[in-house]
């Protein structure tokens, strides 16, 4: 039998036997049956199951153009994360279920989601800690591309707006000579350097929701990371303070602490914003 990819001719020729297309469908049917049995057995075997209610939307697929929620029942085991549960649902029920994920260990920042009404990383949220059913939605206040995937462009634009790069006045000339930084100063900026750009903070912020130009907690924190680093050049620091104290900068923050509350890396974002406000005042910069 030909092993070529399905074409009209081969289908016609092999009409008496089984065409490759038929064979493929037959294999698929068998596989699907086996999979259904396996899922059933796994659900039977599991002492507990959980119900996920997952937001679904696809602008170009019939039946998904109108947002809806799909239910998935998954077998529960101790240690299971929301990401594990979503992967189970995708691989066992519906391969079109779409979400970003990569590292599975809370460092790539791909899977910030709105889970039972709060921004959290799917990979570091334990299913066992949540009430059933578990509602999983894309991050609020961002355009949804499909299912749980949101458009991150605006978030990236705001991050880039604070000129997020190190730019010292001068670097040492000596061979293999580093800039000195005290362990205390390194400690001072440490939390700020932990940001993984997941966007949870921005999504939780009421101000950002109402003011699209607001830099937002992550970008301001990025500015803080450099402005408070003793290696940063004085000119650059002034420039940076000018950026964050403009109309849509630090003064917009009303210290609601929602960003701090949702940050998966425990960065004290609100404190950092407050500190930059003080820094701006200290530098006697003109308010807008």
């Amino acid at each position, binding site marked *: 039998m*030909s*092993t*070529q*990819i*399905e074409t009209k001719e081969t289908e016609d020729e092999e009409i008496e036997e089984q065409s490759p297309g038929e*064979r*493929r*469908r037959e*294999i*698929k049917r068998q*596989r699907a049956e086996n999979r259904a049995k396996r899922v059933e057995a796994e659900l039977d075997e599991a002492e507990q199951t959980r119900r996920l209610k997952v937001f679904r939307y*696809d*602008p*170009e*697929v019939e039946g998904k153009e109108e947002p809806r929620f799909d239910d998935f029942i998954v077998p529960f085991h*101790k240690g299971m994360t929301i990401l594990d549960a979503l992967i189970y649902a995708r*691989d066992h029920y519906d*391969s*079109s279920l*779409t*979400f*970003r*994920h*990569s*590292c*599975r*260990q*809370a*460092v*790539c920042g*791909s899977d910030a989601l709105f889970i039972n009404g709060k921004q959290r990383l799917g990979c*570091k949220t334990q299913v066992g800690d949540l009430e059933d059913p578990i509602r999983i939605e894309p991050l609020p206040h961002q355009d949804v*591309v*499909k*299912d749980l*995937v949101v458009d991150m462009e605006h978030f990236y634009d705001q991050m*880039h707006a604070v*000129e*997020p*790069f*190190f730019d*010292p006045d001068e670097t040492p000339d000596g061979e*293999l*000579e*580093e*800039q*000195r*930084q*005290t*362990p205390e100063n*390194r400690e001072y900026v*440490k939390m700020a*350097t*932990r940001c*993984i*750009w997941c966007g949870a903070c921005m999504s939780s912020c009421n101000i950002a929701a109402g003011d699209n130009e607001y830099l937002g907690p992550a970008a301001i924190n990025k500015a803080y990371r*450099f402005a408070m*680093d003793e*290696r*940063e050049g004085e000119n650059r620091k002034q420039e940076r303070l000018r950026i964050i104290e403009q109309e849509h900068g630090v003064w917009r923050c009303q210290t609601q602490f929602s960003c701090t509350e949702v940050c998966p890396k425990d960065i004290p974002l609100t404190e950092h914003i407050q500190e930059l406000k003080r820094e701006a005042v200290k530098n006697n910069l003109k308010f807008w």
Partner: protein
Amino acid sequence: MYEHDVIVVGAGGAGLRAAIAAHEEGADVALVTKLHPVRSHTGAAEGGINAALHEEDSWDLHAYDTMKGADYLSDAPAVDTFAQEAPDEVIQLEHWGMPFSREEDGKVSQRPFGGLSFPRTTYAGAETGHHLLHTMYEQVVKRGIEVYDEWYVTNLAVTDHDDPEDRECHGCVAHDIKSGEIAGFHANNGVILATGGLGQVFDHTTNAVANTGDGQAMAYRAGVPIEDMEFVQFHPTTLPSTGVLISEGVRGEGGILYNDEEERLMFEYGYANNDGELASRDVVSRAELTEVNEGRGIEDEYVHLDMRHLGEERILDRLENILHLAEDFEGVDGLDEPMPVKPGQHYEMGGIETDENGETCINGLYAAGECACVSMHGANRLGGNALPELLVFGARAGRDAAGKDLGDAQIPTGPSAESEDGDVDTPVSPGALDSTDGDAVADGGAMADPETVIEDAVAREQERIETLLERDGVNHAEVRDDIQETMTANVNVFREEDNLKQALEDIRKAREQYKHVGVSDPSRTFNTDLIHTIETRNIIDLAEAITLGALAREEFRGAHWRKKHQERKDDEWLKHTMLQWNDGDVNLYYKPVMLEGFDQTYEPKERSY
């Protein structure tokens, strides 16, 4: 069609470093990457960056440690280049603002690491990779380098000459994940593959879900030899339930491994009487699995890594991230109890054959970082050597591709470097199913002008993707599961001939199954079903390559252990295993290891720790 001087595929550490270097040489550079750069798996590297910075240290000691760690399967010109240039790269990172951990005098801290004769590992807490990745991405932003993020490169645009050494790479084909657009990318000067690891070939891995070996598989199918694929590093300390990595830094700071009888196993059973827990990774992984196999494992699965005696202050200062990982992913408080650990796939030493300038045998095609094999890690990579490697060879590839003259490379590439024909007895034939197998793409495209080569490649990818989308077939996840299962069962830390042959049979079956896969999501928008289906084909080719290499190499060297061949055989095996794909047929050959370095000729010695 998009056009740039240099196209860098992948935007982790190697890709970012290459892009910055090419940009500094004046090239118009673009990064094309299936993940936004800050999502790359370089960000998960924890431990550190080795570089001989201290005045009492020297690059040749670092080179020697690297060669010894590699069990003498590295090429000396690569190792020496690496060790010489690593210090400059680390200082460069510092000048770019990397938040290194510091000493009281403000200098960059360095700590001991496995297999090193001097404490030369620089680090930034236990999240070194995160800081390295973000620091370099910041520099990419500063330079305004163009980034096509969430564009998945699915194939290379290479000419169709018979001999791969005559072929030329003109660009690549990429799929815009968000819109579904398939477009050609024309590279005037060169394409640099920097796609990272292939951990998804195995089911227990520290690697990200995105680490599917795309670069290795694309280069392989374009005719570039892949080298020493059997050398897969299994990291000794990964969390049992997820594969999340617990940094070697824990042992570097003094963490201890215990078996279920609370014996300090590394010394109690003589696995490494001098270095104990800080022996090379392959040594520690085998020790742990031996304990488990001999009934001294905990729950017959893992051993304990204890750091409680270091004290809360030191742990919080240097290893805080480890506490979060153990808590979030295993539910264990590392301050209160020992952490469960077992070996997990971590790093592929082998990869795309390149010379020390990062170039492959195909003109205009480069590779750097984990997807490449220059070769400097040989049979086993030392902890803390991956990050400096991607800096040194990422930068070199970027410069060379941008047209800077780095001098003639000493390391030969391409099938003409063959010293010996390979022969391996396989139960099923490897490679494409047959010449009509639609998934066995011809190696090269056409012998025409660059635009035509790229347009042809785009047309082929469009056809392939349409077929996958329209075909009503099985879900790729089942094929991928079969591969991961057989690789973990049969091509793991301990390898036996029968198991390796079993794996080859299973891989063949998976290849046949793959002919029947279809994508059930009909959408052009963010179709991850499609992306994963394409990745699965790469996983199949690389699983086969790893297994073929493992079956061919009848000796024990570094990370590669064979039950019936438990000794290193220098007379016979001081050579690289090379696999080359000829329009679907796999050609196995060998090329000799180069032990003559800049200042010294490395003499293989017994490797003991």
